[in-house]
């Protein structure tokens, strides 16, 4: 009964700050590929190259988004195909 009186109704802002930092710093300290954003331009270049083997697309048609969270990061890759994109003729 008393616990509900003493527990803050919403997490307070100091707790929010600590949570945000813990998530961010866990990624930064890990030093893995997801922490180091330098791999993303290369990944994007490679994806573009692969897709271009099969489809005619623009140089900026590949959009890479990264969302970091506690135990899971998600990488979202959007490839915009123009209306008139054609399949490349096979050699």
């Amino acid at each position, binding site marked *: 009964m008393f616990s509900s009186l003493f527990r803050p109704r919403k997490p*307070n*802002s100091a707790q929010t*700050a600590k949570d945000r930092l813990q998530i961010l710093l866990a990624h*930064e300290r890990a030093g893995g590929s997801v922490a*180091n*954003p330098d791999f*993303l331009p290369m990944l994007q270049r490679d994806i573009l190259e692969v897709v271009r083997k099969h489809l005619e697309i623009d140089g900026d048609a590949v959009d*890479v*988004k990264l969302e970091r969270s506690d135990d899971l990061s998600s990488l979202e890759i959007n490839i915009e195909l123009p209306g008139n994109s054609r399949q490349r003729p096979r050699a």
Partner: protein
Amino acid sequence: MSKVIVVTSGKGGVGKTTSSAAISAGLAMRGHKTVVIDFDVGLRNLDMIMGCERRVVFDFINVIQGDAKLKQALIKDRRLENLYVLPTSQTRDKDALTKEGVKKVLDELREDFDYIVCDSPAGIERGAHLAMYYADEAVVVTNPEVSSVRDSDRVLGLLNSKTFLAEKGDGSNVKAQLLLTRFDPARSAKGEMMSVQDVLEILAIPLLGIIPESTTVLKASNEGTPVILDETSGAAKAYMDAVGRLVGEQIEMKVTSGDQRRGFLQRLLGRTA
């Protein structure tokens, strides 16, 4: 026509990033398409204050070096329609910033945005120099405290000599205005803190606004929300007025108190988060 505005101070910890976040959010709230750029290469912080730290993929340096397109690096704010953040790199050092690279990015942004707010790093070295170099206007963030005022004076000297407009030599200058932050009206009245007039007398530039010391600034930073979005905050009201003046409105200068007073019952019952 778009405007490049640098938020600068010389001294660290006076509220440059807090002010950059608040001013850019305020401009966006008024319907101006606005981007805020973090120039503090290697010590990325604007993304945390704006609350978009988990969404950074590409950064300012990637764009300068041609590794990513500008539109891939811009992060669209989830609260305000007209607001974008261009984060800086956490891994490179300040030498990755070049005058040509900064110009290229700013020119591209000028085509799309009404306001480009440059959040300067502390100090007067490369990052700070390039943050102010292409500015049309400057917001000089100053605390009513001796070292901050001294550093602001130094920065004003640089704005008048080491910027693109100053180097043109045709008499044009970066328009610099003072944003006095962490001001405590009660302590100033008691003579424990320099008054607004004292600081203005020394720096001799127009006053853009007086932001009161407020507990809501830390709360906003904890939560990753520009403080100007907190309706209970006296600092938010003061930032709103400052933004109005920045876009050319005549708004009477008021010294607001930092925190809205709550009634006795409210304090007793309402533990609002």
